[in-house]
């Protein structure tokens, strides 16, 4: 009856029942009538600890080492009874921080470090692979054994079978599909997997019942109770030693295995998932503290009787002790009991695989892949509207890959190891998390660097002392690697590191990995300083029971409620987001407008929601991208410190601002002063101009009125007065022209028509224009010295003429009244053309030299009848000469006449319109 198809059908039916339970559990959870929220289901779900390794392997180990199987169950019992407060603290911390996995827990504790989360994930995946492979080979072996019925024969060594004829391969495929359907159907890592928990609890019942049934059958059906079996065994040669501690591998091995399993019950990812993440109520732990040890006790009661029964039943050997649970009912032709045993083993294996892959895939997607993907800006993930699809794909792929790796490990290692030994390899990997977590929740000084160093070092040593030897033993690495050490270096023998002999491989590996892990963890923690986020997380984790409030995060930033909602919708879906937000509104007792600035509570709320889906580290990255500002995360002390530093920063900025204001105000003062000066200058200018204009106007008006009122004035007087009126009118016109010129020059609005010109022609033009002055004053002589080969200059002809006329008329005006002489000289000098106009008049005192070039200033008094100048001629000349790039000055003493001279640069080259320079060569 026990044909392959029947067994497969039975297994399939069993898995369908599991699905039904899971479905029911999910449905009840949605209706808020949870079936798992009680300490019994909680305890049964923790019993996922008992895998096919327990189901088959305990008997196997008992058959070879008697009570040597016990430490694996003694450890968890001790943990639950003696170290329950560690669990309680981890659970509280995880609830407060919405932790999704062990990687999330460690990353969160050490400053929400995504590197650390990734490292933990990698260690967990690699460390758990042997454990998964163990389940695969147990299921496939038990299937193979069962299909041989009624013949009792062991499964063949795996590597000798081609992959497609390998039962383990199909078991992997089948369980992979099952795990994906079960654990990654839809995205709900943020919630409890209530359906899964219900199914796992059911499986725990099945495996317990199956094992008890076999135990009762063997003890009371085949034999005559415990006393009968034990006395028979004691009487049998070779079995007696199983009753001693020597047979159990010695006390050293006992202690190390006990410690190891104490750690494993907390730190195996699947245990963390069930005990911590899926815990619906912290109070359930109180009952689990004694219920779980009771479960362990029950499932172990019949281990020794079955082991002895098997050894007594198959005295000739040839039957693997790991399979006694199956082979004993088969040998007694109890088909249904054998099938029940198979289903029990299957339930133990599937429970482990489901929970392990679900927890690992959550870690891989939340702590390894998403943080990496989110860092690639070019993927634009942070802008994708819906990431749930992507996350699901990552999780499903992770499950498939993990099972594939498990299968490959089975094929590579073969059956060179007993089930128990393979399981212990994973136990030691999980134990690597112990220092970082235990240290992290009890010691605030534990730092990220310490955690990374400890985990990394411990993991590398684990790979060297356990993983590598498992490959060597199965022939995948040269055997000499084990016996003589790598390259024959005895000190580095992986199972006798630094000549540490005499320990079993497990104790040896535990010793060295822990020495290195704890040593590095302590050393780096003591030598490095923590970041602010790290410090505040440390305080929050260590002091979790001291505070009632949930995570105290303070975000500073200006994100709107709408932006936060959008972000949340991307990860948990729009409907769930709407629901959670309406709950938040209810609890805050106010409505949240989409365009209002998200308050600290809203952002913290969103972070917790997000942390539930994608882990704390990723949540932080995502929120930071929306809130656009670094988070200040702190406990009260840090808050105060931070506030203080903010105040300091604020006052620093204030000081900076006040400096800026001071300098601006100084600038303004200076500008104002300048403006006032300019205003004063302008006023003076206007007043002066007004005075200068009024003077000729006064003469004109006075003489006009005199002429008008005195019609019978003598003709010569009349002519004299009319002449004055004409002269003063001309003066007025000149004045206006000059004022216009100078204001245009100052405003830069005067158009200059610069040309390269022969200066001699310009000077002659000016002489022609002033010829009238010399003719009128026949007592003034003119001397000119104008060579023919004067260099060309780049000037505006009219303006240069204006300067020359101005200087010549001044010279005529101020030269000696009785015997006047004016000299005009031009010559090339040092790359410049210099023209001087000299008179033999009264001269100008040296202290007045500067004054004559200022506006409306004239040196000394003029007691002449000659018309006065405008007071602007020389200032205008200065402007013009400066525009040409030259200089003008006066050379004079009182009574010695005056010489006005200017020099302008010679035009560069002979091209028209070229710029001129003072250094220019001869044109």
């Amino acid at each position, binding site marked *: 009856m026990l044909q392959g198809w029947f067994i497969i059908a039975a297994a399939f039916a069993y898995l369908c029942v599991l699905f039904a339970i899971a479905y029911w559990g999910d449905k009840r959870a949605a209706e808020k009538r949870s079936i798992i929220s009680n300490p019994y289901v909680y305890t049964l779900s923790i019993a996922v600890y008992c895998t096919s390794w327990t189901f088959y392997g305990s008997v196997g180990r008992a058959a070879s080492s008697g009570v040597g199987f016990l430490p694996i169950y003694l450890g968890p019992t001790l943990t639950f009874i003696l170290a329950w407060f560690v669990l309680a603290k981890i659970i509280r911390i995880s609830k407060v921080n919405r932790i999704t996995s062990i990687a999330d827990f460690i990353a969160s504790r050490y400053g929400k470090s995504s590197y650390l989360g990734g490292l933990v994930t990698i260690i967990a995946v690699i460390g758990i692979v042997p454990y998964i492979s163990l389940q695969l080979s147990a299921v496939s072996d038990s299937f193979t054994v069962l299909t041989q019925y009624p013949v009792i024969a062991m499964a063949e060594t795996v590597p000798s079978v081609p992959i497609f004829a390998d039962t383990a391969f199909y078991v992997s495929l089948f369980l992979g599909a099952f795990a994906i359907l079960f654990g990654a159907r839809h995205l709900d890592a943020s919630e409890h997997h209530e359906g899964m928990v219900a199914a796992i609890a059911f499986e725990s019942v099945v495996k317990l019942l199956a094992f008890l049934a076999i135990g009762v059958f063997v003890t009371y059906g085949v034999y005559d109770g415990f006393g009968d079996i034990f006395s028979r065994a004691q009487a049998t040669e070779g079995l007696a030693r199983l009753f001693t501690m020597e047979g159990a591998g010695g006390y050293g091995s006992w202690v190390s295995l006990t410690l190891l399993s104490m750690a494993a019950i907390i730190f195996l990812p699947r245990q963390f998932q069930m005990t911590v993440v899926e815990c619906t109520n912290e109070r359930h732990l109180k009952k689990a503290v004694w219920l779980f040890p009771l479960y362990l006790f029950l499932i172990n009661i019949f281990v020794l009787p079955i082991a002895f029964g098997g050894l007594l039943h198959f005295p000739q050997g040839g039957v693997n002790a790991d399979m006694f649970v199956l082979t004993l009912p088969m040998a007694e032709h109890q088909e249904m009991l054998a099938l029940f045993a198979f289903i029990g083993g299957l339930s133990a294996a599937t429970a482990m695989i489901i929970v392990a892959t679900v927890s690992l895939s959550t870690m891989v997607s939340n702590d390894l892949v998403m943080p990496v993907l989110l860092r690639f800006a070019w993927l634009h993930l942070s802008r994708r509207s819906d990431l749930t699809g992507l996350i699901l794909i990552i999780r499903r792929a992770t499950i498939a890959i993990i099972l594939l790796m498990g299968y490959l490990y089975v094929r590579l290692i073969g059956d060179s190891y007993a089930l128990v030994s393979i399981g212990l390899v994973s136990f030691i990997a999980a134990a690597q998390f112990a220092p970082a977590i235990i240290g992290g929740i009890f010691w605030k000084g534990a730092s990220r660097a310490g955690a990374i160093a400890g985990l990394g070092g411990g993991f590398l040593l684990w790979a060297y002392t356990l993983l590598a030897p498992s490959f060597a033993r199965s022939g995948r690495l040269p055997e000499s690697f084990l016996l003589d050490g790598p390259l024959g270096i005895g000190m580095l023998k992986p199972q006798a590191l630094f000549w540490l002999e005499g320990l079993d491989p497990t104790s040896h590996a535990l010793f060295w990995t822990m020495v290195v892990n704890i040593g590095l963890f302590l050393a780096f923690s003591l030598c490095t300083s923590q970041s602010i986020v790290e410090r505040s997380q440390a305080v929050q984790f260590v002091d979790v029971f001291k505070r009632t409030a949930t995570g105290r995060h303070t975000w500073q930033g200006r994100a709107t409620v709408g932006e936060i909602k959008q972000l949340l919708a991307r990860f948990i879906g729009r409907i769930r987001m709407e629901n959670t937000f309406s709950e938040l509104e209810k609890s805050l007792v106010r409505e949240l407008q989409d365009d209002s600035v998200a308050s600290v509570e809203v952002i913290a709320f969103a972070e917790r929601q997000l942390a539930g889906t994608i882990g704390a580290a990723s949540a932080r990255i995502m929120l930071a991208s929306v809130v656009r500002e670094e988070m200040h995360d702190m406990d009260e002390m840090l808050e105060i410190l931070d506030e203080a530093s903010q105040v300091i920063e604020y006052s620093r900025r204030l000081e900076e601002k006040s400096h800026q204001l001071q300098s601006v105000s100084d600038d303004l003062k200076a500008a104002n002063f300048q403006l006032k000066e300019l205003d004063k200058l302008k006023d003076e200018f206007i*007043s002066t101009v*007004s005075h200068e204009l009024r*003077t000729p106007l006064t003469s004109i008006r006075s003489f006009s009125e005199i002429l008008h009122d005195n019609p019978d004035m003598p003709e010569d007087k009349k002519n004299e007065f009319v002449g004055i009126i004409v002269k003063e009118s001309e003066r007025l016109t000149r004045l206006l022209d000059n004022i216009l010129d100078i204001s245009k020059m100052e405003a830069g609005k005067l158009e200059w028509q610069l040309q390269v010109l022969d200066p001699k022609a310009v000077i002659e033009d000016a002489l022609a224009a002033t010829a009238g002055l010399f003719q009128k004053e026949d007592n003034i002589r003119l001397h000119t010295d104008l060579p023919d080969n004067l260099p060309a200059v780049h000037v505006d002809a009219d303006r240069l003429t204006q300067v020359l006329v101005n200087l010549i008329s001044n010279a005529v005006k101020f030269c000696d009244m009785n015997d006047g002489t004016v000299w005009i000289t031009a010559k090339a000098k040092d790359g410049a053309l210099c023209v001087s106009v000299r008179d033999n008049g009264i001269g100008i005192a040296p202290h007045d030299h500067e004054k004559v070039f200022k506006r409306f200033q004239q040196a000394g008094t003029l007691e002449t009848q000659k018309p006065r100048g405008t007071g602007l001629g020389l200032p205008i000349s200065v402007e013009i000469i400066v525009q040409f790039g030259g200089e003008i000055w006066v050379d004079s003493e009182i009574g010695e006449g005056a010489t006005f001279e200017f020099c302008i640069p010679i035009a560069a080259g002979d091209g028209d319109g070229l710029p001129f320079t003072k250094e220019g060569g001869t044109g």
Partner: protein
Amino acid sequence: MSQSILIVDDEAYIVTSLEYLMKSGGFEVEVAYDGEQALTKVAEKAPDLIILDVMMPKLDGFEVCEKIRANPLWSAVRIIMLTAKDREAERNKGLALGADDYMTKPFSTRDLLKRVKKLLSEERIAG
């Protein structure tokens, strides 16, 4: 005996026109082209009235006025300030310094003559 007028201005044409105007009005006329000259002329022989420009080289009109008023001997001398400075503040300054009248350039010749005559018709006793 006809009354005497001192004309003080640095602008030769204006002096010419005032000289002609006052002479045709029947006054004796003296001229000065700056403040110092003016004070010299006053010291030689105090005129009945001075037509005083303000902006002049050496001593300006305000200073000349101040010095004349500081000397009680010359308290009977009438002073008309005739200047291109047309601001109220300057006008007040001139009057405060003791000028009897203040006129701005350009001025009406008839108006000036009228004021000169009016001032000279008022009785004043030299101290």
